[in-house]
């Protein structure tokens, strides 16, 4: 059994460390690329959202390298993603790719079936091994997310432009080769040191932008046209509250163990959206409010075309923009690989934020000189 799994930003680190620790054989598909998108578009239903298409591309590219089993997460969440694993299996079989799929979910709360699937992955039921694998996977997820957050801070301040991108890209490549938790942890630590040793402009006060939206397109840099690094290289510090470790820890582990979760976003969203309506809409709304309250300069929402929860969120965002006087830009991603349109919007948004800051500074000075 050679396992593979779909890409979504740095999720492959989490996937591979989990499988390393469980002692399973696996193939990491090539990073998201045009070819994967082309393959996915060929086999997926036309109106499906972009993540499904890229998932299929990942599987088929891994199949070509010898993978025969897919590890995918699922769930009965109210977004169609919960059903993608099952759907993808059908599509692959129809297209003649003989691949099996293990979906990690609890079908109708059936714990026994869930454990059976884990057993299949782990090749037995060594509770210590499984426990250690889960612990180390969670740890690495957190470390990688923290490393990414560090790039958000360093990139706008670096003296030699492009340094952060170079180091971070090398890290992502090297991570493909790392084996097991210890090696992965060391690589994260070395990269962190390298980033911290970069020369930065400490007096520079960057504009701050919060990124919200659908999880796949916000986390996966390939699909968002490297939005976070683009903004960073324009001298903007970004923040992205929806992360993989957060998803694993808050949504899977804490809710399975009935532990208290960080629900600040639910509270912040409440005046605008009082319920979970699927996907990450409530996070989008709640986090946009939190960003506004924390003094961020702007918010960017990203989602794949036809994403229902985010369409609802998009229609609520103007109210937040008005109430808190914070600019919001929405980027909708689909199969187009032409970047020009996105770049135009991002640049214009940056111009807008800079002009607003200039104006605020002038007004503050005026108030000061009057008093």
């Amino acid at each position, binding site marked *: 059994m050679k396992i593979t799994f779909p890409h979504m930003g740095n999720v492959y680190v989490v996937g591979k460390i989990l499988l390393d620790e469980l002692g399973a054989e696996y193939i990491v598909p090539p990073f998201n690329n045009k070819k994967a998108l082309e393959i996915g578009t060929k086999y997926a239903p036309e109106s499906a959202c972009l993540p499904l298409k890229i998932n299929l591309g990942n599987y088929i590219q891994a199949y070509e390298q010898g993978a025969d089993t897919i590890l995918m997460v699922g769930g009965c969440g109210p977004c169609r993603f919960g059903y993608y694993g099952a759907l993808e299996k059908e599509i692959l079989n129809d297209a003649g790719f003989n691949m099996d799929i293990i979906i990690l979910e609890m079908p109708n709360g059936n714990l026994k079936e869930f454990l059976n699937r884990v057993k299949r992955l782990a090749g037995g039921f060594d509770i210590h091994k499984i426990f250690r694998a889960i612990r180390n996977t969670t740890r690495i997820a957190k470390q990688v997310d923290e490393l990414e957050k560090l790039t958000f801070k360093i990139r706008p301040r670096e003296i030699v432009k492009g340094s952060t991108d170079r180091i971070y890209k090398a890290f992502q490549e090297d991570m493909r080769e790392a084996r097991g938790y210890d090696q992965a942890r060391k690589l994260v630590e070395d990269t962190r040191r390298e980033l911290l040793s970069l020369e930065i402009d400490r007096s520079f006060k960057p504009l701050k932008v919060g990124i919200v939206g659908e999880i796949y397109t916000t986390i996966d840099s390939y699909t968002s046209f490297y939005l976070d690094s683009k903004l960073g290289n324009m001298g903007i510090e970004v923040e992205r509250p929806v992360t993989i470790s957060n998803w694993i820890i808050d949504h899977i582990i804490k809710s399975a163990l009935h532990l208290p979760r960080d629900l600040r976003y639910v509270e912040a969203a409440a005046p605008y959206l009082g319920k979970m309506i699927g996907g990450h809409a409530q996070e989008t709304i709640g986090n946009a409010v939190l960003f506004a309250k924390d003094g961020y300069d702007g918010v960017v929402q990203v989602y794949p075309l036809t994403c229902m929860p985010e369409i609802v969120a998009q*229609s609520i965002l103007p109210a937040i923009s008005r109430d808190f006087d914070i600019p919001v830009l929405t980027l909708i991603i689909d199969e187009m690989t032409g970047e020009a349109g996105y770049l135009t919007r991002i640049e214009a948004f940056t111009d807008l934020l800079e002009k607003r800051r200039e104006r605020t500074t002038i007004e503050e000075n005026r108030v000061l000189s009057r008093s």
Partner: protein
Amino acid sequence: MKKTGYYLGVDVGSVSTNLVVMDEDENIVYKLYLRTCGKPINVLLDGMKTLAGNLEKDVYIKGVGTTGSGRQLAGAIIGADAVKNEITAHAVAAQRMIPDVNTILEIGGQDSKIIILKNGVVCDFAMNTVCAAGTGSFLDRQASRLGIPIEEFGSYALRSQSPVRIAGRCAVFAESDMIHKQQTGHSLEDIIGGLCEALVRNYLNNLAKGKEISEPIVFQGGVAANVGIAAAFERALGKRLVIPKYYDVMGAYGAALIAKKKMEEGKGKTNFYGFETAECSYKSKSIECKGCSNLCEVIEISSDGETIARWGDRCGKWSAQLKSATGDGSLM
């Protein structure tokens, strides 16, 4: 005596390529509106030749700005001092013409935009996302299908007694709706009138949703020439539109203004290669980089066999190579 300087603004859009020459007092002294016809490089060079032929010999270009979807390409070929996105360029130009402008409606060839200003600062904008239904190229296509010159398209709409209802959300649906209505016997005027209303409805529902449209409202971009669309906007909004004199080259004008500001701040020398660049031959080719799984599409522009610009690579492998080879210090 000090030589008077001029500024050049270039807007390479999907449908039109516009060039503007502006004097020190920010007056437009010469403007060109050309069809891009899918060949941005050739049209740009033709435009440069026309400019060179029509301007006085001693015209001294102090700064160059480019904008539009082909801004990078144009900037590389003629040597730009400022390369700016078209949203900012349009806002700058509108503000220069109508200083207290609050709303800018801009409909170009392939995209449409709305820009909202508050106290003289852009505070919100939107651009059509995926479909080109409400834009100039769609109107162009319908005009040629109906055999009417695009310049007269709007006046047909004005003669309409009772405009028919046409679906404006999608270019394909709009066209089949139009054909359907035409086959059932509606007059051309009513169909065109209906189309104008549908486009305006779509624009307001899609782009302007949730935004406050307050006067003064400036309507610019190539489609502002269409009196039918302008009338439909005024009916739907119940407000007056201001159409600036140079509505069709506002992007290029904005780029020239931005270049002027930049040169005045920087006091540097312009990057402009001169009008002679139009005599060189330019070639562009795309290479698919196989360096990693990103498979970037790298564009290479060469002038008389010498590579002058490369872009499209995420890691900078191709673009950086060129900069070091030519000793360009702009990397720092």
